[in-house]
């Protein structure tokens, strides 16, 4: 399979905590094709960010461990990479955009200094070439007076500007894969729309693949080709974007969609899924969503459902078992 850029198979991660170990990620499987934008959706605590950090090898070494599975990037297994091999990957082949633009830039360096970091590391360029490349990329992401901004410090920029700088930082080495961990959550809605539009355009221009992590289904609809829905450290549903919105199979996805506010009819109350995501140490046998699921029956509590597929549409729910209940 040459058109698959990133493939995660049966990934399981273990965290050491004060009260023993927990598994925030269990049996996660998905793949990302070249040029595709894959959305990863889920509530807080569903394991979206942990998954993305794992791809870059950014989990804390002392307290976390990959207990099962593999991650293939360009047909190469990367979970066993050494620190040195990872460093070659980071910022060069795979870049990441973080959630908080306000804290993701080092306050003591100018924008220019920060942006020259990945270039110094991964590309052989003279100082002049670097400066030109930086100004170019800053202009690409729509920063006015790019020549002056490179001499300014992060605190002199607004949140939207800083996120643009973060995006340009991620784009500098023209990575094959861009991981975006809720890149617009900390921004207000108008800026959010601008940034999303910008990212979409940049992705097309550079022919990158994107792993887009968010809890916002509206953003997913805007950005993604395919969607992975995660719940409590597991994937519960994978589908094409239109298929997911038109024909959600898993009760959790249905709940998420129902809880979106709509323009057309003003409901007096927003729908919410009852209960909370279980903590990783509370998950036992059976479907993790069963205790919040309106359709749960005996089997759901007894046995963890496998993935049932209907073409490209996967869902982990006993309701989808072909022979019915």
């Amino acid at each position, binding site marked *: 399979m040459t058109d698959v850029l990133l493939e995660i198979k049966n990934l399981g991660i273990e965290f050491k905590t004060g009260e023993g170990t927990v598994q925030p990620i269990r049996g996660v499987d998905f793949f990302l094709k070249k040029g595709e934008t894959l959305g990863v959706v889920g509530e807080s605590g569903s394991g979206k960010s942990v998954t993305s950090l794992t791809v870059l090898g950014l989990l804390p070494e*002392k307290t976390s461990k990959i207990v099962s599975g593999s991650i293939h990037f360009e047909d190469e297994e990367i979970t066993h990479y050494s620190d040195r091999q990872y460093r070659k990957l*980071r910022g*060069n082949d795979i870049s990441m955009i973080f959630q908080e633009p306000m804290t993701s830039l*080092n306050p003591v360096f100018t924008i220019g200094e920060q942006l020259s970091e*990945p270039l110094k590391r991964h590309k052989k360029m003279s100082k002049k070439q670097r400066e030109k490349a930086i100004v170019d990329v800053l202009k690409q992401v729509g920063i006015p007076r790019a020549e002056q901004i490179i001499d300014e410090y992060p605190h002199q920029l607004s949140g939207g500007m800083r996120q643009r700088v973060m995006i340009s930082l991620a784009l500098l080495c023209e990575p094959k894969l861009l991981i975006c961990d809720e890149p617009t959550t900390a921004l207000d809605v108008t800026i959010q729309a601008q940034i999303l539009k910008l990212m979409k355009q940049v992705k097309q221009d550079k022919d990158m693949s994107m792993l887009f992590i968010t809890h916002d289904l509206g953003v997913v609809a805007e950005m993604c080709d395919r969607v992975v829905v995660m719940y409590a450290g597991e994937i519960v549903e994978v589908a094409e974007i239109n298929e997911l919105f038109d024909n959600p199979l898993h009760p959790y996805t249905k709940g998420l969609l129902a809880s979106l506010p709509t323009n057309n009819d003003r409901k007096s109350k927003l729908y919410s899924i009852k209960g909370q995501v279980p903590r990783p140490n509370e998950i036992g046998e059976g479907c993790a969503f069963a205790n919040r699921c309106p359709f749960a029956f005996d089997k759901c509590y007894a046995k963890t459902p496998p993935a049932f597929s209907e073409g490209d549409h996967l869902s982990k729910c006993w309701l989808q078992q072909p022979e019915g209940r």
Partner: protein
Amino acid sequence: MNATEVMDDQINKKTSKVKNFFRKLSRSWTGMLGFGIIVLLLFLSIFGEWIAPYDPMDAPLSKGLLPPMTDGHILGTDQLGRDILSRIIVGARVSVIIGVATAVLAGLIGTIVGVIAGYFRGWVDVVLMRIVDVTLSFPFILLVLVINAIIGTGLTNIIISLAVAGWVIFARVIRSEVLALREKEFITAAIATGVSKFEILVRHILPNIFTPIIILASLQIGTYIIAEASVSFLGFGVQPPEPAWGNMLNEGKDYIFSSWWLITFPGIAIIITALGVNFFGDWLRDTLDPDLKGE
């Protein structure tokens, strides 16, 4: 932009930095006072020997214990007839050297230990911090005296003793700064662009703790000057006849009831110096601390 313009630009940047410093300094009278005292102190420690009206070691015994303002001795003379003003002026050098050298040495050791403990954590952290705890559990002066008694007196040894007893405060503060920094998102972001651990430490964490190091060092200098005076007063440290404020106090204490000026003026010199350094350190903290500065 041609070459000269570029140069002009750089010069302008430099002068505007200096200007900015004085503009900020002029807003606080304590900062100005502290800065003035430090400048005076530095001046005395460099040019003291030429400014002093008399040779500080010259002891005409017939002129012993003259009160202030007699016979051309503004602050009087001590039991050996040495001019007290001259001895205070020349003694400033000892205080400055000890204050600055100790702060640099203690700051260096403390920063290295603090950064290693804070960044690498684990058993290294546990071992280093227990050493710090044990050291901190001794009274500072007592520890300095013990070390000084072991390694001997003299200027170099007093600096070493003060630094060995004093680095722990730096280590504590720096460790906690590093602990807070390493969890910051920009550090993760830097790792995500492929920066190695060592470079994270040197290029991203060190510049961020520079401010607390400078502030702490400037505040500690006052402590070290007083500690040196105390140690010299107790007969360790800088040995007579070399003029130092602390041993002037020590020598003058026998005459405290008959000739008050022997111990009053060096005492005042110590107080002014400690106050000045602390004023300046406080001002520096208020100016550099981003939490207080406001954006």
